[in-house]
């Protein structure tokens, strides 16, 4: 990857007094999302306007509506809240949602990792098309994915008919939930690992080989530690996405209470019974989990960036 020096001339010409020699030091940065060089002073116009508009729109569309959830929860007593979020049916839905999400993310770490490796390291015909199609679960509406997977895995479907004689039922069971969540989480691991693999330096592998390491040792001691943070980030992203997923799961799950009912569906059921407070209480639990996951992902990404940079400089 080409390196280029952080900017140091132009802003300083505009403000001769800006910065000491230290800030003018040549900063070598990899061209990535991480480049933020601090402008010494606001030169460009439109700061107040754009910040004002951004904050207003953010408040109207995101902050006020989201705060409604927390406000609504306060209409419940503490005991009522605890009851709503720990009833046996909700607990069963948590187990299914988080269990299946965890498994699906693990499946994606293994196979997504292999897909990323194959796409970066090997050549084969149709590679560009395959590469583009990896993003299909991002682009394909979840309802479409849901009905397609259900049709494929039902007893007389293209795939289900071969599993049925083996006694494996996929559609309308928790296994179906796992399949749907694996589908929607597929791109995350591939897309986080791919750029890291592309950036790894082959010289390191050559050095390892020349020092007598076998290919497997090189993989375990050189390649794997480099991509590990990316694998972990991809895992967390796939897991986070899976816990909130609704559209692709409702068709294939069968939605039996206590067995194959995911938490988002249970929220919808509560809403349809006009139990707004109950639905909101469960939503709060899910939101808190999502925020914790978001925080974890941010920390993981910061760690991965640091590792990446430390490896390069």
């Amino acid at each position, binding site marked *: 990857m080409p390196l280029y020096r952080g900017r140091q001339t132009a802003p300083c010409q505009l403000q001769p007094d800006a910065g000491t020699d230290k800030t003018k030091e040549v900063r070598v940065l990899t061209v990535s999302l991480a480049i933020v060089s601090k402008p010494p002073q606001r030169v460009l116009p439109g700061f107040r306007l754009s910040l004002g508009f951004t904050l207003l729109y953010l408040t109207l569309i995101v902050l006020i509506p989201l705060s409604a959830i927390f406000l609504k929860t306060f209409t419940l007593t503490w005991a009522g809240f605890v009851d709503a979020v720990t009833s046996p049916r909700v607990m069963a839905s948590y187990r299914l949602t988080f269990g299946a999400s965890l498994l699906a993310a693990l499946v994606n770490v293994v196979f997504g990792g292999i897909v990323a490796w194959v796409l970066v390291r090997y050549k084969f015909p149709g590679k560009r098309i395959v590469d583009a199609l990896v993003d*299909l679960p991002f682009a394909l509406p979840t309802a479409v994915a849901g009905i*397609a997977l259900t049709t494929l895995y039902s007893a007389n479907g293209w795939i289900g008919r071969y599993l049925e004689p083996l006694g494996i039922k996929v559609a309308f069971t928790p296994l179906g939930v796992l399949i749907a969540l694996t589908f929607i989480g597929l791109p995350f691991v591939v897309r986080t690992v791919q750029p890291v693999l592309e950036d790894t330096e082959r010289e390191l592998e050559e050095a390892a080989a020349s020092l007598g390491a076998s290919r497997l040792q090189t993989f375990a001691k050189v390649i794997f530690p480099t991509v590990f943070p990316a694998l972990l980030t991809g895992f967390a992203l796939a897991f986070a996405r899976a816990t909130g997923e609704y559209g692709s799961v409702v068709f294939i799950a069968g939605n039996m209470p206590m067995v194959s009912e995911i938490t988002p569906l249970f929220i919808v059921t509560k809403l349809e019974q006009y139990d707004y407070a109950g639905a909101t209480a469960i*939503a709060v639990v*899910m*939101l808190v989990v999502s925020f914790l996951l978001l925080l974890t992902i941010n920390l993981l990404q910061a760690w991965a960036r640091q590792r990446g940079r430390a490896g390069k400089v």
Partner: protein
Amino acid sequence: MSAIISAAALVNVTPVSVPRGEPAYAPAATLEPVWVRALLILIAFAFLTLFLFVPLIAVFYEGLRKGWDVYVAAIFEPDAWSAIKLTLLTALIAVPLNLVFGVAAAWTIAKFEFRGKNILLTLIDLPFSVSPVISGLIYVLLFGLQGYFGPWLRAHDIKILFAVPGIVLATVFVTFPFVARELIPLMQSQGSEEEEAALVLGASGWKTFWHVTLPNIKWGLLYGVILCNARAMGEFGAVSVVSGHIRGETNTIPLQVEILYNEFNIVGAFAVASLLASLALVTLAIKSFIEWRLHHQLTAHQAAYALNHQPS
């Protein structure tokens, strides 16, 4: 890319032609044995076939199973047609709104330093980490009959929930970060020297934006817009909660797919679904094209930068 594999070594797996101009050598020490490579490619293909290719093919196959006439009739059926129109209308409102926001947010974050920037970035990402169902729920809590603004809306005879405005709002919420997320890293990597130069030469702020910034970010902008649009047209969970499922009135295409499917009108459901699948494929094609352009632009930008900033 340094991973150049000799064509001969891969012949047993898949025929490959080595592009002219690239050296066809393989540093054997950093290459796996042929059988390992073949196995890995096979596993990757099997996984992708099972989870991507087969479901995609199934959508078109099931939709066209009873022939072209039935397919076309299913799409032009009045309820399906009104769902298509509502989906287009929703995207037509939601995407431009988030486009304007995305540009404003990216300008603020990429061009200026201020306190609380990281918090702002996190807040912009927030809708991505909220379950679609919860994204719909928040509008029920605000505008539903028992909601905070419910009684007032009812008194003034304004319908938001179970009507088009609710669908648009839920869509705006779930597609909120798309454009901003694409533009922020792009504009940060470009810096603001070109804008500063334009200002020094006497251009006004708007003029600078139109003639300097916009041409620089146009591919990134388009990238964000097509992703935003794909999600806006395909959103299911959030819209399902706020729509009320009134046939011919508040059903978007994904909701229409659900209704047809639950009525065991499988061909109809897949015919309508194939529209969304086609949209997804077009989106991916444009996305790949833009990625190629962006890569090109970024490399050119870096080359120009390196030339202009030779160490003296």
